[in-house]
């Protein structure tokens, strides 16, 4: 069905080309001759203080690379609309590489486009690509944000006074559970008496419920609150209003909590984007499955805020150094919060172990249930 759908821009362009004459039909080539054009598609607004902003910040970095042109479109729904956006980026702007930054863009939309345009590279920001199932000009890239959440946890564990911390999460899926677990492991590494209270809101963006959850956690005595929702703006602002400390997520929220900010887990997509641009300019093949954390400079922590104590800063900085050296932080014996052993004593889980991506439990120290 999608074969017959042309975007308006494509249609206009073809019409114009056929009017002017044959030389312009191959206009795509002339457009790229000057340099490399990269398209980035966002599901939400670029300045959401969250997931989309993290990508948009990287796009700004990418634009500074000589010879690279970046075309962006925001608020593109995960429907046939994203195919039209990609088509017009390819046909009209001559994009040779497309970054699709939302979960639902992948299948069928990005896959369809990859089949239709075999000489364009497509990369998707969540690790869904499989070698034997998907086209070779498509792929996934992903960053281990949980490593930065682990660092958050260390700083938060040393900053809390009530030994009760709160985590507001959207949905109990693997990537979210990983972040909750990493945060909790960080907290309990430096402060074994502390617990992390989790509240699931049920969806990625529910500002009123996120505010309610923040208030509920503050009422329950939590003095550090962090989250994994699309845009942490409401959580961080509400925490600040309640006079409790907070850690950020996705992008920098330091400016929203001038008093209570400790640190935050941030993506550093710019590293991946610039690497890909460089590879492509050299005419080299892009990796189909790119992933990594601190060791590859794909994640970072927001600069410490005023709520981070001296001890917290020191311990967190040391943890960052370990992660940069690719030291594993998950080791046995690790129990889930129902008492089952998930990592047996003596076993160390490598940072690249796919075991981490299959997380379906909450570790000991988390109050809440994933089910």
């Amino acid at each position, binding site marked *: 069905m999608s074969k017959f759908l042309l975007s308006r821009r494509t249609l206009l362009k073809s019409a114009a080309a056929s009017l002017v004459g044959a030389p312009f039909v191959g206009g795509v080539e002339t457009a790229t001759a000057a340099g490399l054009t990269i398209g980035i598609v966002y599901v939400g607004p670029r300045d959401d203080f969250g997931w989309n902003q993290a990508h948009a910040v990287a796009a700004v970095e990418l634009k500074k690379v000589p010879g690279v042109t970046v075309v962006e479109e925001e608020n593109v729904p995960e429907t046939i609309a994203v195919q039209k956006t990609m088509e017009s980026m390819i046909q009209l702007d001559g994009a040779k590489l497309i970054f699709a930054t939302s979960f639902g863009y992948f299948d069928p939309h990005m896959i369809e486009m990859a089949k239709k345009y075999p000489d364009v590279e497509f990369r998707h920001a969540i690790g869904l690509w499989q070698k034997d199932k998907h086209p070779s000009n498509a792929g996934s890239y992903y960053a281990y944000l949980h490593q930065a959440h682990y660092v958050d946890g260390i700083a938060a564990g040393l900053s809390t006074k009530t030994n009760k911390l709160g985590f507001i999460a959207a949905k109990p899926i693997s990537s979210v559970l990983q972040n909750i677990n990493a945060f909790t492991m960080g907290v309990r590494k430096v402060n074994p008496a502390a617990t992390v209270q989790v509240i699931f809101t049920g969806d990625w963006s529910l500002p009123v*419920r996120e505010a309610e959850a923040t208030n*509920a956690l503050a009422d329950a005595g939590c003095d550090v609150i962090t989250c994994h929702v699309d845009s942490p703006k409401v959580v961080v602002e509400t925490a600040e209003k309640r006079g409790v400390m907070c850690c950020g997520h996705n992008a920098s929220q330091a400016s929203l909590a001038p008093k209570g900010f400790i640190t935050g887990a941030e993506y550093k997509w710019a590293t991946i984007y610039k690497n890909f641009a460089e590879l492509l300019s050299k005419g080299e093949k892009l990796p189909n499955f790119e992933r990594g954390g601190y060791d590859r400079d794909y994640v970072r922590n927001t600069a410490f805020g005023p709520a981070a104590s001296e001890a917290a800063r020191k311990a967190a900085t040391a943890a960052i150094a370990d992660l940069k050296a690719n030291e594993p932080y998950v080791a046995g014996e690790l129990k889930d919060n129902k008492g089952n052993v998930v990592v047996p004593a003596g076993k160390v889980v490598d940072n690249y172990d796919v075991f981490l991506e299959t997380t379906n439990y909450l570790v000991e120290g988390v109050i809440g*249930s994933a089910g």
Partner: protein
Amino acid sequence: MTDVVTTVAVAMFAGAVRVSTPFLFVSLGECLTEKSGRINLGLEGTLVFGAMSAYAVSYLSGSPWVGVLAAGLAGSLFGALHGAICRLPKVSDIAIGIALMLFGTGFAFFLGKGFIQPTAPRLQAIDLGFLVSDPQLKVALQINPLFFIGLILAVVLWWGFANTRIGLVVRMTGDSAATARAMGVSVDGVRFWATTVGGFLAGVGGAFLSLFYPGSWNEGLSSGQGLMAVALVIFSRWNPLACVAAALLFGAAGALGPALQSVGISQGYHFFNAAPHILTLAIMIATSSSKRSLKGAPGELSITK
């Protein structure tokens, strides 16, 4: 155990006070519009547009109350547009409402782009915390003036419908257009003004969202609250006082999910998060009958006619 019960009860009370105001304003506005015999489904769009314009104007002018006024005026423009289009012959007020809902949200997103990042001055709460000693209650008693204005408004509307000439004219127009015409009342005129004022109230409800709670402008801000508020009017049987109760109940039910999880009761949180909607369904089923139309429904309303 008593601790848990108290915490949850206080959280629900606090949630009712915090979350109910936008529901209250939108449902009062819609109540007025529906009493005149017209239904405006576009209030979700008005709410979002009101939220955006309140935040933007508060940021630009430096005064949150100017923002509230701007939201009200923007809302009344939307209401007036609905009222004006529905004057034309053979126009469905429901279809126009849906169109305006989409237009309002889309236009708000378009104009609101530049206001996601800046921090606007917010509305201040009236701190009644000195009345109690419990720290959780102290926080719950930081109440926005708009909440009280909403309560007063509900009483005024309830009294006004029953005891004033204007109230009588609005009700008459809603119950029987023919009678109103016979009395020399302009049916379209009354409905136009009822929709315009209803839009004003919905806009003010939006201002509460962006300027007080949760207190920032972003595109996911309303998440359907305007639509729920329209349902609340039917739920409260077109009675402004019942609108207050319904809005409070909805706020309290919405606080149930997070509050239970905060005290460690996390099994079935999806169910508790859906509590407001389940509650609405249950009450609707319990109070409806196949033998008569909804009690209190204005006779001219296109959905009940």
